[in-house]
């Protein structure tokens, strides 16, 4: 009797747990279906290569090229800036600070806290700095703020890979009389390259998808920016601003932008998972 109850309880929960996993997977497909269903029909060569005509909110003609190119400029710039600051810090933590485990763990803790700060706070911060100096919204401001936002993500990602370098490789490299920076850039970066690429891809995905930080700092325009000091359109804001328009063609632009952005993220996620799986198999211990 008691055994029967236990068995049925176990069976019940096993089913429920299985369903929970299924629901999660199902939700992903529902989301992807929903986005593509609305957006695929709006995708056309014209949509991808022309800018909105007659104003992005009301204009019936044109496409989302302003947002696509703006996002590419912004994300590449942000990732580049984040790499310049982030890679050396990650290497520093794992090679120069080998002895000082406590300090490294403190830095990691710090980075984890930074990682949790929502992008709108970065945006608000950026905005107040911009007001202080009288700067207008621009691509450059967006690049800097998004870079700051993704730096903790990038560093932690690279740090996770660097952590797995076997101590023996470091010792062998030191024994050859190499300096720390030589070991860092000539040996360790090469060893961890696939992992670093994965982190960069994921950071790029976060950068291109962010709306809250660029809202304050990059503005929005119909045009493709020609210099860093101009405001720029981005895919997330293109969706955000155009979705609520009463004009159907404008709404379609929002759906198209959503589809493009989703495809970019899908490609990045799948590709980076592929890289990390492939190289996990080939690694020597």
């Amino acid at each position, binding site marked *: 009797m008691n055994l029967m109850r236990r068995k049925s309880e176990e069976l019940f929960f096993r089913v429920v747990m299985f369903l*929970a996993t299924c629901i999660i997977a199902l*939700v992903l497909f529902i989301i992807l279906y929903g986005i593509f269903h609305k957006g695929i029909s709006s995708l056309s060569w014209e949509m991808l290569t022309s800018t909105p005509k007659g104003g992005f909110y009301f204009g019936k003609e044109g496409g989302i090229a302003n947002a696509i190119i703006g996002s590419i400029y912004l994300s590449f710039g942000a990732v580049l800036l984040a790499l310049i600051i982030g890679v050396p810090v990650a290497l520093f933590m794992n090679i120069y600070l080998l002895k000082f485990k406590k300090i490294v763990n403190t830095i990691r803790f710090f980075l984890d806290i930074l990682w949790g700060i929502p992008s709108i706070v970065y945006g608000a911060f950026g905005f107040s700095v911009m007001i202080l100096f009288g700067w207008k919204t621009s691509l450059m401001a967006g690049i800097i703020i998004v870079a700051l936002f993704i730096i903790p993500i990038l560093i932690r990602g690279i740090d996770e890979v660097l952590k797995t370098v076997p101590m023996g490789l470091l010792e062998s490299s030191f024994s050859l009389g190499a300096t720390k920076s030589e070991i860092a850039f000539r040996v360790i970066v090469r060893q961890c390259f696939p992992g670093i690429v994965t982190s960069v891809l994921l950071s790029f995905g976060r950068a291109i998808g962010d709306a809250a930080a660029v809202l304050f700092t990059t503005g929005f325009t119909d045009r493709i920016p020609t210099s860093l000091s101009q405001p720029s359109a981005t895919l997330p804001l293109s969706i955000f601003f155009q979705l609520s328009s009463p004009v159907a063609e404008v709404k379609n632009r929002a759906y198209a932008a959503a589809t493009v952005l989703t495809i970019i993220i899908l490609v990045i996620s799948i590709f980076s998972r592929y890289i990390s799986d492939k190289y996990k198999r080939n690694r020597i211990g």
Partner: protein
Amino acid sequence: MSFHFNSFYLRRKLKDKLITWWMNFGLAIVIILPIAIGFSLFMKSHLIFENSSITGIIFSKEWKPLSGKFGLLPFLMGSLWVTFLAVLIAVPVCLLSAIHLTQYAKKWVLHMMHPVIDILAGIPSVIYGIWGVIAIIPFVQHLAAFFGKSVSGYSILAGAIVLSIMIVPFILNILVEIFRTVPEELTEASLSLGASHWQTIKKVIIRKAFPGIISAVGLGVSRAFGETIAVLMVVGNVIRIPHGIFQPGYPLPALIANNYGEMLSIPMYDSALMFSALVLFCVVVFFNLLSRMAIMRFERKL
């Protein structure tokens, strides 16, 4: 062997020094950044305290910027409702799924779920928002009609549903890690004492992992509280303390995002918004810190 003090050697040393300096510079930025953010938000917001106290602002219901009244209560309540409901939906699902994936499912299932979780985690906020508008708003409308209410669909519930999906990959990853770190010997000992797998899970594994589970919830709360764009797009943005899940709300991050444009035209509006950002910053960091410290303690105990 001679010690060649040649120019090449000096160049090597110089390179090494420059790179070390560059690394220290980057590290300085990383460390100064959160302090700078907190400080600047504080500086910009303290103007608002000339006329009222902190508790006055946080607990006041009146948000009338034109009259100089900046009560944050409706927004805080909106955030609390959405966050609480989202966590309520997400945590059980993640817990059940994490147990399934680590205890019962075959290896390939976990392997297949990895890209699913990756993609869910990578989908930008605004995509969740637009999907929320397309799919969740009508759903909430129909659900409310089922209960005899006629609503627009833009509601706390819509915000909570979208938000819960967004925090699932985050919490699920942490829980899977936590369950994986419970030592095998513990499980084996319990099983060899005659307990069934399910009993082992209930009595041993969950109990052992409990602090970790709490931390995962805490981190989920932190993540949910700060989420801006997706929630903003479906939650209605009506300034009122919500009294039911079908009612619209106005969470704190949405306040900042929707009004940044008018910040400078009304006196002290920018202070109020920066103060809101500061509150957001403090709440998020607080939950984050607590949860991570709890996880560290938990891992040390294992």
